[in-house]
């Protein structure tokens, strides 16, 4: 089964929910939709499922135009953010329900339910009722119900968001492994960049109803197509500085200029937005060419193995992601160092001019 979305638009009461979406999903692929709340993830999934109509555009499944056919004809399963199960049916009957609907023989149902339950580690709870289970087990039940019927497309709408963070980690990995063996198209919506990166597969960035960029998440992380795309990969958010390139000098608004040699010789003079990932800034210079800025510590968030150091001066707010524990009191003056070769450069309008070359793109 392949799925092609062609020029999909959807307007509701004059508001554009989806705009010119063109996407192709390969059979057996794992796909992630990454976007903020209200970016259009759920809208897109509902259109794919056939729950909502498109305003214009076409949807093809295996080459057949299914734009007008309804949800029952599309052989789709969906897993939601809330744990949706039939509360008055046992876990077994919950999982069996889609099979019973298509009149599968009893023995076959038995075998499939057992198999799916084992895959999701809920085989011991088959006789219980959903509300007697923990959140994680309830969501596993919902997933089992989606998986059991051999749907051609399975849609996951932020399925892990209501679960404990540790459980998320485990289920995420299980899900990814599950789909390696299947010939189903999986589409997984999330707001969390880390989830997109961890799940792998093809990620499409959604922003205000439009697709910004499609491809492996890690490529998008290193080569965002514009400011919005760079900002979507924000754990913590990318730092943005307004500045200017002048000959071989770089200046940030009211600051002294920094000589950057011929680093940016291929970039025209003018005003740009400069982006730098929090993990690329340090408290000690690594190179003579590093840009030195004097700032004061706003707050130091110390996670177990890392410190997120929020610093500012009167024009800038910057966050640093440092490994190890760096306990700074508020208002301590520090110097931070930004390697110019790690700068993303965006045009005034937001489109990317230059992305830093990732040191390891050749690796696996």
């Amino acid at each position: 089964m392949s799925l092609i979305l062609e020029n999909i638009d959807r307007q509701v009461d004059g508001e554009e929910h989806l705009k010119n979406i063109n996407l192709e999903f390969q059979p057996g692929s794992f796909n992630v939709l990454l976007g903020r709340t209200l970016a259009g993830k759920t809208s897109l999934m509902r259109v794919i499922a056939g729950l909502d109509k498109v305003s214009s555009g076409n949807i093809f499944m295996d080459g057949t135009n299914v734009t007008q056919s309804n949800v029952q004809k599309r052989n789709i399963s969906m897993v939601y953010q809330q744990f949706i199960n039939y509360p008055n049916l046992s876990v077994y009957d919950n999982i069996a329900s889609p099979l019973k609907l298509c009149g599968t023989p009893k023995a076959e149902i038995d075998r499939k339910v057992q198999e799916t339950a084992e895959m999701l580690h809920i085989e011991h709870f088959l006789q219980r009722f959903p509300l007697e289970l923990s959140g994680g087990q309830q969501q596993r039940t919902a997933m089992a119900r989606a998986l059991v019927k051999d749907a051609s497309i399975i849609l996951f709408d932020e399925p892990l968001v209501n679960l404990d963070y540790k459980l998320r980690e485990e289920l995420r990995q299980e899900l990814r492994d599950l789909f390696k063996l299947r010939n189903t198209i999986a589409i997984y919506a999330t707001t969390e960049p880390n989830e997109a990166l961890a799940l792998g597969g093809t990620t499409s960035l959604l922003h205000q109803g439009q697709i910004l960029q499609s491809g492996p998440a890690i490529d998008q992380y290193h080569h965002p197509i514009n400011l919005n795309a760079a900002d979507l990969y924000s754990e913590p958010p990318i730092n943005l500085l307004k500045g200017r390139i002048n000959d071989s000098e770089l200046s940030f608004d009211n600051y002294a200029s920094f000589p950057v040699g011929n680093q940016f010789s291929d970039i025209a003079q003018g005003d740009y937005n400069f982006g730098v990932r929090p993990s690329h800034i340090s408290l000690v210079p690594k190179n003579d060419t590093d840009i030195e800025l004097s700032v004061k510590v706003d707050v130091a968030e110390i996670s177990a193995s890392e410190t997120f150091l929020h610093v500012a001066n009167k024009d800038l707010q910057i966050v640093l992601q440092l490994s190890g524990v760096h306990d700074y009191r508020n208002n301590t003056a520090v110097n931070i160092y930004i390697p110019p070769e790690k700068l993303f450069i965006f045009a005034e309008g937001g489109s990317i001019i230059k992305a830093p070359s990732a040191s390891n793109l050749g690796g696996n």
Partner: protein
Amino acid sequence: MNKIQNNKAWFLVLPVFLLVAFSAIIPLMTVVNYSVQDIFDQNNAYFVGVEWYRDVLTDPRLQASLGRQFIYSATVLSIEVPLGIAVALMMPTKGWSASLCLILLALPLLIPWNVVGTIWQIFARSDIGLLGYVVNGIGIDYNYTSSPVDAWITVVLMDVWHWTSLIALLCYSGLRAIPDAYYQAAKIDRASDWSIFRFIQFPKLKGVLIIGVLLRFMDSFMIYTEPFVLTGGGPGNSTTFLSQTLTKMAIGQFDIGPAAAFSIVYFLIVLLVSWLFFTSITHLDKDKVKEQTYD
């Protein structure tokens, strides 16, 4: 090109459309038709234009019963709504007592209208009725068949007894939908019980209250059976409400034309008042939506 619309859905609406046509539109049009003609018998009908309307609107009998009708609806609403909310607030929330309360409250709603009238007719009688006898027994002169004031009190009491449950049940379900966290937060903020009602419960009840008040207004404005059974509209015309006047006119006197014109006016009044009420209540919400579009 890709705008091919599937029109089959319209067929699904057809049964509803037919039903509405037969149950509402066709009868209504018949009445409109009657209201502009003077009908003597099957073959003798003359077009009279708006004459019946003019007659009806200037008829002092009708004006009086319209006035009574408004006072009546306003009275029962102003008793039933606060009382219903109060009952809902006092109801237990869990255990067997909650179920018991729900059953007790639902009971009056299950009794047919004419039976309600009969119950009160007997209950309030000053000779054998429990209520009437006791009231007279403690020295208050009470007789709903002779005193207009007593008749009014009895009719209003009956309506309150019959329908307060509806408001109470609606509010009860509305109250149950408020998450516990709100009450906890209010406690922490040291809100008084009144503040809790004013700022948490009442705002969250607004939705069900709109429906409740609307239902009660329309119902009370069209009330017929209970006062008819209880007082027969008397003494005099003191409890003769609009629908009773209308029935007398159409069935008692066979004044089909004026009765039809009256029906149309009646219908328009109910529609107008309901609409005014509904839009003014929902007005606030619309303001909020506007505000939202600023940012």
